Structures are given as C-alpha cells and as structure tokens.
C-alpha cells in the first residue's frame, strides 16, 4: 500500500503546475485520470526492476549539457520531408513544407483549431489499450500534456520518408511530444526520427496500420551524453500488414524505449529491433517490448543487441504474448549483449506467455565478452587491437541493423556507427 501512495504522490508532484494544452480535450482529460489512478512508476515496480525511473518522473528535469557532434546530419543524403523541433518547439524555418504526395501531415499543436477526425479517433486510444496488462503511466502523462507532435495519415505510398529531427538547444529543456500515424489499407510510409530532442524527453508514437499497409520506423536517438528519454511506441496492426521499427542508441544517460504491438489481423508481420552502444557508468539503456499475437499466422521478431563498456548497463525486457486462438504464430526474440570489460552489466527478462498450442515461439538471450579467438585471428593478420574490436563489435550489431528494410538508410547508420566507434565519443 505504501507503494501506491508513493506513486500517487509522485504523479501529483509531477503534474503540479502543468496545464492541459488544448486539442483532443477528451483524450487528454481521460489520460489525466489514468495518471491519477496509476500514479507514476517507482523503482519498486516489477516493470521498473532494472531501471530507476526517478529522473524521468521527478518534477524538474536534470540539466543536460549540449553536445556538438560536428558532423553532417544523419540521412542527409536521403530525399525526405524534414520536420524540425528544437527542444520540442516546432521550427518552421528549418522545416520543409508539410505537403507530400501520398500522405497528409499536420502538427498536433494545430489540431485544436481543425477537426482532424481520424486523429481524434486515434490520439490516446492505442496508449489506453497499451495500459493493460502492464501499466505505462509515463505514456498516459504524455497523452495528457504533450505540447506538440506530428499527425500523419498515409493514404497511398508516401513519395518520401518523413524525418522528425529533434534538436537540443537548452540544457534544462523538458519535452513531451506525441505523434500519431495512420496507415490506410495498402498504404506505406517511412518515419525517421533523429536527434536527442531535449535534456529530458517523453515521447509517444501511436501507429495504426490497416489491411495490407506497411509502416517503417528508423530512429537514432542522438548522442548527447547527458540526455534522458522515455519513449513509447504503441502499434495496432491489421491483417497482412507490416510494421518494422529499428532504434539506434549511442550515448545518453538514461533511455527507456518501450514498444507495444498488438497484432489483430491474420498474416501480419511485426519486427522490432535495436542496437545500442554504451560507454561509462552513467549509461543506462532499457528496451522494453510487449508483442501481443491475437490473430492467425502472425510473425514477430525482436532483435536487440547491446555493446557495453566501462560500467554501462543494458536492460532488455521482452515479451511475446500469444492469445488463445492465435494459431500458427511464429514468434522470435533474441537479446544479446557484448560486454567489452568487466564492469558492465546486462540485465534481461525475455518472457513468453502462450495460450495457443500450434505455435512456434522461441527466445534466446546471451551475454559474454568479445571472442578472444576472433580477436587473435584478426590481430595475427595485422589488424590493430582497437580496429579488430570495432570490427567484431559492428559484426555483432549487424543482425539488428539487418532488420531495416531500406538499404540506403541501413548503410547510412552503419557508416555512422563505424565512425563513432573509431572516434570513441
């Protein structure tokens, strides 16, 4: 009981002084009720066993120094619709025109004046569904108080990817962004998210994919060393649809990425992958995934790879839930860590919950040091130790990068990763 009080107090303290923005008023009010009922997470919650949420829930964000990578923007060579937020504030000058063939794009902050019917139906709906069986109060907090975000509706094949660029310009910024994507039947869209966004980011992405639709999501979370982030991606996908999400995390003090997918239609495919490179005791990275199979012939894959050194901590909590009647489900989950020294930690809870008998579900989790034999092999052929280590690290991460469908995007991330490893920042 003491825990419930603690959580309720945390919610109250966090919400004091915050006011509900306008637009989606009903959904925001409901979300406020959910936060009040659930409270905010505590380290004593089973779901936060391996990650301390205090810095994400406390009223004031912890300041984060800015970091200038002095490099060209990621996906710079890709023809894309750029939408820029600086510390959560839309930057019209830096952004492209929001018109793009095959899709409708609007800003969340503009939604108050316009009645965007499809968005009103989705905003907060998937987040609400995602609150059971496990509570995700930080997502409800976001639904209530998100300042801005993007609403995307794909009606055909989008001519180019949409790139949400999150810049960090203020050491004390505290940002909540909420985006909604609706992929209509047979439509296809790619969403790119890049950059650190703020000292503290709470982001929610709700994605609905209709019959035969496809959604691709590629994200790189920015390299600021001190930023903190909690992100939720809620997806609901229909028959014969495709959902693919990949996240690269390098640096950052605390990152918790939750991905909650409901597969409601037959023959749907959902792939979630992540690669993370962490250095130093301050680095704490948590991937929490919950995939629900509630239809026939579903295929899901979770591929998560973490490279950790100098006391970095990597967490993976993954779950495949196969509901009664979701026969012929093919569920796969792999979480692996490469610990480059003796101080780093990998904490994993790869779960299966299965109520259908004709399914193939497997999960694997491994953790260990770099292969000495492979290292020796490379060194004996003249590759210096550091280069050999980097090469093996990249090879280890490759399986997760392979989950990106678009080769150009994947290559861009691979090149970047290679240069980051070489520069060690």
């Amino acid at each position, binding site marked *: 009981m003491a825990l419930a009080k603690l959580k309720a107090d945390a919610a109250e303290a966090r919400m004091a002084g915050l006011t509900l923005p306008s637009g989606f008023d009903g959904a925001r009010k409901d979300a406020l009720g959910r936060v009040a009922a659930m409270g905010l997470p505590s380290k004593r919650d*089973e779901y936060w066993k391996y990650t301390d949420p205090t810095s994400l829930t406390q009223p004031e964000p912890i300041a984060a120094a800015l970091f200038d990578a002095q490099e060209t923007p990621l996906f710079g060579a890709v023809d894309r619709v750029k939408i820029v937020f600086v510390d959560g504030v839309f930057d019209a000058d830096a952004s492209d025109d929001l018109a793009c063939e095959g899709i409708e794009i609007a800003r969340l902050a503009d939604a108050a004046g316009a009645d965007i019917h499809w968005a009103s139906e989705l905003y907060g709906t998937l987040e609400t569904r995602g609150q059971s069986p496990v509570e995700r109060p930080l997502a409800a907090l976001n639904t209530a108080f998100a300042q801005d975000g993007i609403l995307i509706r794909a009606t055909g094949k989008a001519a180019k990817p949409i790139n949400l660029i999150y810049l960090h310009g203020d050491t004390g910024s505290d940002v909540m962004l909420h985006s909604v994507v609706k992929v209509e039947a047979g439509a296809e869209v790619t969403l790119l998210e890049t950059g650190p966004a703020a000292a503290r980011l709470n982001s929610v992405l709700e994605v609905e994919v209709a019959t035969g639709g496809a959604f691709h999501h590629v994200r790189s979370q920015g390299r600021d060393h001190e930023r903190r982030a909690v992100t939720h991606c809620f997806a609901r996908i229909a028959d014969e649809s495709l959902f693919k999400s990949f996240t690269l995390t390098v640096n950052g003090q605390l990152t918790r990425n939750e991905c909650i997918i409901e597969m409601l239609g037959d023959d749907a495919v959902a792939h979630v992958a992540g690669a993370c490179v962490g250095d130093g005791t301050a680095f704490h990275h948590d991937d929490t995934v919950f995939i629900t199979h509630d239809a026939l012939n579903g295929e899901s894959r979770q591929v998560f790879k973490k490279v950790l050194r100098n006391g970095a901590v990597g967490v993976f909590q993954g779950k495949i839930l196969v509901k*009664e*009647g979701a*026969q012929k489900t093919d569920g796969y989950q792999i979480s692996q*860590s490469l*610990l*480059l*020294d*003796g*101080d*780093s*930690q*990998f*904490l*994993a*809870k*790869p*779960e*299966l*919950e*299965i*109520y*259908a*008998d*004709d*399914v*193939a*579900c*497997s*999960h*694997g*989790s*491994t*953790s*260990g*040091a770099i292969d000495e034999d492979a290292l020796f092999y490379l060194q004996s052929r003249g590759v210096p130790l550091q280069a050999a280590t980097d090469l093996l690290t990249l090879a280890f991460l490759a399986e997760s990068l392979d989950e990106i469908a678009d080769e150009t995007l994947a290559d861009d991330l691979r090149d970047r990763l290679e240069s980051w490893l070489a520069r060690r920042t």
Partner: protein
Amino acid sequence: MATVDQVDVKDGVDQDTVDAVAALSGTYKYGWETEIEMEYAPKGVNTDIVKLISKKNEEPQWMTDWRLEAFARWEKLEEPTWAMVNYPDIDFQDIYYYARPKSMEVKPKSLDEVDPKLLATYEKLGIPLKEQAILAGVEGADMPPAEGRKVAVDAVFDSVSVGTTFQAELKKAGVIFCSISEAIREYPDLVKKYLGTVVPASDNFYATLNSAVFSDGSFVYIPPGVRCPMELSTYFRINAENTGQFERTLIIADKGSYVSYLEGCTAPKRDVAQLHAAVVEIIVEEDAEVKYSTVQNWFPGDENGNGGIYNFVTKRADCRGARAKVSWTQVETGSAVTWKYPSCILRGDDSQGEFYSIAIANNMQQADTGTKMVHLGKRTKSRIVSKGISAGKAQNTYRGLVSMHPKAKESRNYTQCDSLLIGSDCGAHTVPYIEVKNNSSRVEHEATTSKVDDDQLFYCRSRGMDEEEAVALVVNGFIKDVLQELPMEFAMEAQALVAISLEGSVG
C-alpha cells in the same frame, strides 16, 4: 510406458502387479485414505499453536524462541502475488497445523512397534519400510533388484515422522539420517549451526510460516570424506483432512562427501484443497556433492479443479566450499498449484549447480516453477534444463533467475527451457531473469514452445500405436534429457507418471 506394457503381458506376473499396472493407466492412484485415529492441535495458527508444536516435539527453548520469532515476522508479511497462479484465498486459520496418528503418541522405539496400519499405508504406496535390499517405487517393473542396493527411508505421515530405516547401518558409516525433530533433540549443535542459514526464517511468506510451524521432516549429515553407503529417501504422505503439512529438511554434506537423496509425496483425493509449505535447506561443503531428486505427486485436484494440494515450497542449496556440487532433479506431476524454485547459491569457487525439471500440468493444474542460480564464486557453472508440458486447461510457467555477480569471473550458465502444449485450452509461459555483472562469464538462454510434432505422431501411429500411446512416446523423447538425470528407480516411475498425466489429453 513400454516397460509397463511388457510387465503386463508376461507370464507368471502376480495379481498385485496387474493391479498396479491397471492403476498406472487409470487416474490418480494414490488417492485413497488410511482410516486411522488422529489427534489434532486446535485449528488455526497463533503463538500457542507454535509453542504446542514445539512442545510436542520436546524441543529446547532456543528452538521454541526461533519459531516464535518467525511467527511474529510472518504475521506482518503479505502473501506473494507475483506468480502466474490463481487460487481462492487461503484461510490460514481454517487449517490444522498439527495432526498425528494417536498410535504415535508414544514414540515407537523401532519400526516393529509402529502401528501396522501405518506400515500398511507405506507398503500400499510401494515404499519399503523393511530393512532389505529393495527397489523403491517400481513395483510391477520387470527389473531384478540391483545386488545389495539399499534405500534408507524416513517416512513422514501428516505432521510426524513414523520411522527411519537403516539408521544403525548408516551410523556405522558416520551418517546421521533421522527425523528433524529427533535431530533437534539429539544433535542440537549441528541443527543450531545450520538451520535457517540457507533459507533464513525471514526468506519469504511461506518459508517464514514453515519456520514457525514445521512439525517434522528429515535431517541428514554426511561427515567429511564419506560417500553415503545407500540412497536416502523421505516419503511424505498427507492423510488427514483440512491439514497443512509443513515439513523441514536439512541436509549437510561435509567436505568431500556424497549423498543422493530422493523425495516422494502423495495425498488422498479430497474436494477441499490442502496446503503444503515445505522448506529444504542443503549445505554443500568443499568437494562435496549432493544429488536431490523429487517426484512430486501430490493429489492434483479433479478435472474441474476441485481439491488438490497447494504446493508452496522453498528449496535452496548453498555450495559453500570450493568445487561443491549440487544437482536438483524434479518431476512435477501433482499438486493443484505449484510454487517452487529449487535454487543454488554457488559461493565456493568452481562450484556447480544443476537443475533438471519436468513439470507436467493437466486439467486445471497450475505450475509456476523454476530455479535460481546465483553465481558468486569464480569459475562457477550452472546448467538448467526445464521441460514444461501443459494439457487440458492447465497453466505451466517456468520462472528462473541466473545471476552472475561481479566477482563470479569466468563463470558459465546454460539454460534451456522448452514447453509443449497439448490441446488449445492450456498455456505455457517462460519468465527468465538474467543478470550479468561481469564480462568473463557466459550466459546462454534458449527457450522454445511447440506442439507435439505431427510428423512424429504420424510415424508412431502408422506403426500401430493409438494416439495417446504415440503422444506419450513423443513426450518421453522430449523429456529424455531430464529423465536421464534421475536415479534409476525414479526414472522408471517418472516414465510411467508421464503417461498417466497425459491420459485423456489428446483430442
């Protein structure tokens, strides 16, 4: 299964054997009740009951105090809810915490003095209480007893130990094997030194309750360098109605010793569920080895989920010395609800822990079971092989922890947990926790869930087996890894048990 069939058709097999085989393919065969006059402590639990149990066992004051301290702690604890099991609230004040056959009021000096009704009970269960070389638990199997092979048995009936066989012979080897109540009286120094050091009285809700009210159980001490001359075994029988069984087992394997310990348990069929909350503590010193095998066959309740045993058990082994080794093997077929995680603390350098488990849940059974491997010492190794089978409307969960502490350099763990679902109304779940805090250790976890392979079934059926036989054969293949680890007596029993539990689950 094949073995049983062969016995069945052989000439000259006596009627008892035929009956035993018939019982094997029927339903729960241990569901009968022994009619015997019992004496009970008043229902419920309070400090008076705790004191009464202590007094009945003629315990010294320090033991009574230890129990009372545990009880005070228990009163402040809440029942855990994290396991994936559902059962009606247990009214802890509506249970008898102490039930003893009247005939045990005056402790029998030898087995000859034990009430014949009690002896007949164990005979009927196939548990030899006579001191002769016999194979335990495989009546009806066509296996000649291995020459000179002996099993010493401590038989626990409701709240008391009825008798322990081969005590004198074991004593010659320096081995102490007796009921825990006797050990508290006769070897207080040993008990005081070790009791509660592996599973402290504060450990968890059920272990704390057990610490307060345990009535009996077994005590084993193997002195340094001694290889226990025979297998030791404890057989737990719950007979009385509305009674909880709270037994405590303490096994100490001193430096360089070895013991193989077997545990079996059954209970009568009843409509009302009964509670069983045991604690097993094992201390393994330098170079010692303990092999602990269980066939858990408590009454599972009927097909509608009425009755059965709630089996909430804390089992833990502490490998204190270098190169100590402990191996848990369990076959879980009984109980309405199982909540059990036999664990290994690998403290000594190069110590080893193993956990082999087959959990079979049928009808409305719920099993939440697994292990914890806590690696503290250098170069410690652990292996987990868990096979879960769900049928009917049962739910079967593997829950386990592998923890590599920063100082457990160059340690290794391999975990494999597989689940098999038979029918579309059951569930199989896997909840592993993996915590790696150094990089020279390797942890590998694999899990799969599948249904009985159609091709394998077709192969068997095309060779004339009916569907149930075929499933039993395929399942036996699936759990072979685990059965291999059982002592021979148990492997036979276990194979038969596998067939029983899957009865009627196809179709």
